[in-house]
């Protein structure tokens, strides 16, 4: 069944049809939630809440990009989660092995096609980028994740966060500028081409 048929069936209350859509989009939604919230457990909660909310609000879907519609719902769920965490701050728990060591590379990030060294390097760069993303305010972070991580264009991002196009441009530019300043602290993690350019400029 194609997506439109599944959506129609889900709107009539067909839970199985909706769950097929869940399987198609859960990676994308979890990715969005994780990059915005920065923690896996909270990202899981936000993703689950987003899907429950999406099923209940299916009648409000009036066509267009279903992906954008879902991203809007998970965006709101992320904002709710961030507000909850602001009211009740929690110390982030790092995953640990049986020996009590920190797991620096969570299993869902491991790509079996690359060497262990590359994998570690990529993982550490990803963590550095995520660290810099976490330093941004939620509004700036949301725009960067939508445009640069999810690959959406400005108009889709504006529709999702329900702000004007100019606001998206402005927030994105400022967020990128701050990301660049933050990433400069992790010079040794940056790719060689990046570092060479930096040395040439200094």
């Amino acid at each position, binding site marked *: 069944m194609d997506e439109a048929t599944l959506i129609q069936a889900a709107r009539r209350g067909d839970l199985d049809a909706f769950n097929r859509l869940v399987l198609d989009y859960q990676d994308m939604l*979890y990715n969005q939630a994780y990059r915005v919230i920065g923690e896996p457990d909270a990202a899981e909660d936000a993703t689950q809440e987003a899907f429950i909310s999406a099923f209940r609000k299916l009648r409000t879907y009036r066509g267009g990009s279903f992906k954008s519609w879902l991203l809007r719902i998970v965006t709101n769920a992320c904002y709710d989660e961030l507000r909850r965490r602001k009211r009740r701050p929690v110390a982030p728990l790092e995953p640990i092995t049986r020996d009590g060591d920190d797991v620096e590379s969570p299993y869902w990030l491991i790509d079996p096609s690359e060497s262990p060294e590359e994998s570690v390097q990529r993982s550490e760069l990803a963590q550095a980028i995520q660290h810099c993303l976490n330093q941004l305010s939620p509004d700036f972070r949301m725009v960067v994740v939508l445009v640069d991580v999810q690959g959406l264009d400005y108009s889709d991002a504006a529709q999702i966060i329900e702000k004007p196009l100019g606001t998206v441009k402005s927030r994105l530019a400022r967020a990128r500028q701050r*990301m660049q300043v933050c990433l400069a602290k992790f010079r040794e993690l940056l790719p060689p081409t990046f570092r060479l350019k930096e040395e040439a400029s200094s």
Partner: protein
Amino acid sequence: MKNHISRRDWQRLSAYVDGQLPKNQQARLRQRLSEEPALQLALDDLRLMRSGLRELPKMRAPRNFSLTPEMIGQRKRSARIYTSFRLASVLSSLLFILVMFGDIFTLGYSGQQLSVPVAESVAPAAPIEEKELEEAPESEMAEPSFSAVVEDEAGQISVEKSAEQGLDVVEEAQEDQVDPNVNRQTADDELPIMDGDTEMMTQGEVDSEIPKGDIVSWRIINTIEVVLAGLAFATGLVAFFLRRRGRI
């Protein structure tokens, strides 16, 4: 990394990288990029950072987020309960308003209806009493009753007419006397037919008799109003707490 790029230039570079800069500004920026190495370097840095973000590993869902009937059923059930209570509250409020307005309207109408029969029952007493006062000294009766007045009038009429019409009038008067209950009502005098044992109703008796049934119905209406108001409030309160609990 030294960055002397202004915020406005940085915004232009950011939009340029994404192909979102207007065409007229693109040409101007390209010219500046060729003339200002710092600007070109900032653009290169921006492109690298953007590609780094885009190449971030895509997180895979750590588990299956499929919904179960329990997840949806719980919320649906509570949503149905909340909707029912909310509807009950609205309906109770509407009924309360209807009954209240109906009560106010019928109260005014009943008040008008009550005054009419009281006036009708009181009105005939006045002319009867006047006639009693007029006839009392002529007939020399201590407590003239209505039937006595009628008989008196009949007697007087027969005496007056006998001079003009002779025996026919006397016969007429006799017939009238035989049947004292003949109705001598004229167009102007609508008196009810009353026996000698009939007693006139006093104002107090009229007031006490008619409203009793209305008092009972008013009490019933008031009770209904109180019940509806209480129901509207209670169901509205339950709906409010159900909704509040759903938010947490």
